[in-house]
């Protein structure tokens, strides 16, 4: 991993981080909304209509990306009203409170925590429960993430990270880095100057051009 590259991290809580690549990809995820007024030509514009003159009538349901939902939403609900994706609804909340460790959070939308935090921006009467569920899910899964990241040394971790969402994966990687750094310190390799990882990717091509 490059040690001098510090990307902009995702935002915490209700605010997104404007320049964070993670937050941009997270806000690209779709959520279901209900049209509150007749929306001329929206169907075509979103690629869900049948023709240029297609208007989405009041009450019809669509799936739009989060960034668009945030932009079109206002508290008086004149244009759209936001509904919850199923992973944040009552049924799934019960599953998560029963045992959060068995759920494949990567499949249920890879940005469970980030997207869930953003959902709290829309005034939904279930917000307190959603917030509680997200928090409790994180608490119950964190132990497992930390444990596995600190004990998987030099092995294939794809099975361990397969069911983690993006936030958990970042934590896992941080744990792995700590573990690897410690192990290399123990072996006395901490003072060894190493080639920059950036070089290892470009260097091969460059030096073959010179030699050849």
């Amino acid at each position: 991993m490059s040690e001098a590259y510090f990307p902009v991290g995702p935002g915490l809580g209700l605010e997104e981080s404007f320049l964070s690549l993670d937050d941009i990809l997270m806000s690209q995820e779709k959520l279901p909304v209900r049209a509150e007024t007749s929306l001329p030509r929206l169907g075509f514009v979103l690629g869900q209509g049948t023709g240029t003159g297609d208007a989405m009538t009041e009450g019809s349901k669509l799936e739009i990306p989060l960034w668009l939902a945030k932009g079109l939403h206002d508290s008086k609900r004149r244009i759209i009203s936001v509904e919850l994706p199923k992973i944040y609804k009552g049924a799934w909340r019960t599953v998560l409170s029963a045992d959060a460790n068995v759920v494949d959070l990567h499949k249920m939308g890879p940005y469970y925590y980030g997207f869930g935090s953003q959902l709290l921006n829309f005034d939904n009467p279930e917000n307190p429960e959603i917030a509680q569920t997200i928090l409790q899910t994180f608490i119950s899964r964190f132990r497992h993430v930390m444990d596995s990241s600190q004990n998987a040394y030099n092995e294939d971790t794809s099975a361990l990270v397969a069911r983690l969402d993006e936030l958990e994966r970042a934590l896992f990687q941080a744990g792995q880095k700590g573990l690897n750094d410690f192990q290399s310190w123990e072996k006395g390799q901490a003072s060894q100057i190493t080639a920059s990882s950036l070089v290892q990717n470009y260097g091969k091509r460059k030096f073959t051009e010179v030699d050849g």
Partner: protein
Amino acid sequence: MAGERAVGLVRELHRATGGNLPPFRTEELRQALEEMRALYEQNQADVSEAKSGRTDLIFLIRFRHCCLLRNQRCILAYLYDRLLRIRALRWEYGSVLPNAIQFHMSAEEVEWFNRYKKSLATYMKSVGGEEGLDLTQDIKPPKSLYIEVRCLRDYGEFEIDDGTTILLKKNSQHFLPRWKCEQLIRQGVLEHILS
């Protein structure tokens, strides 16, 4: 779907892990900016119509505005993240970038890199007394003045401080001063051997 190209740029950059710098996508960037221009012009036209009474257009104007903001955000994040990666190159690789990396940078980015180098050099000269202080050296605390290195590829002749030249051929081993080799090790020419 509006904003797809801009998000595509972000996605590709996000996939390049480890601080790698993928090639600069001039064409996709131009298309995204073109999309923004088209949206803006459509909105300009619709706003004057909406002002004279067609309130049903207000939603469409707002939608296009959201798309414009989205494109703006994606493009800005793309350019900024690339600069962060280029900055990391100065610290990890050195002040002369190999051609392979330079091909991946746009002209403006090369310009930015040169200006950053200069800023850094000015700063390093101003710190640490008369000769300045090279902050890009000794990233890891050194244990000794001289280190054992093995050459990984043919590099050619290399002069050290007391005037003697050393021929760096593949697989030759040398015992050299740390400060002379550090950059070559980071560039992958030499390999630091621990005894």
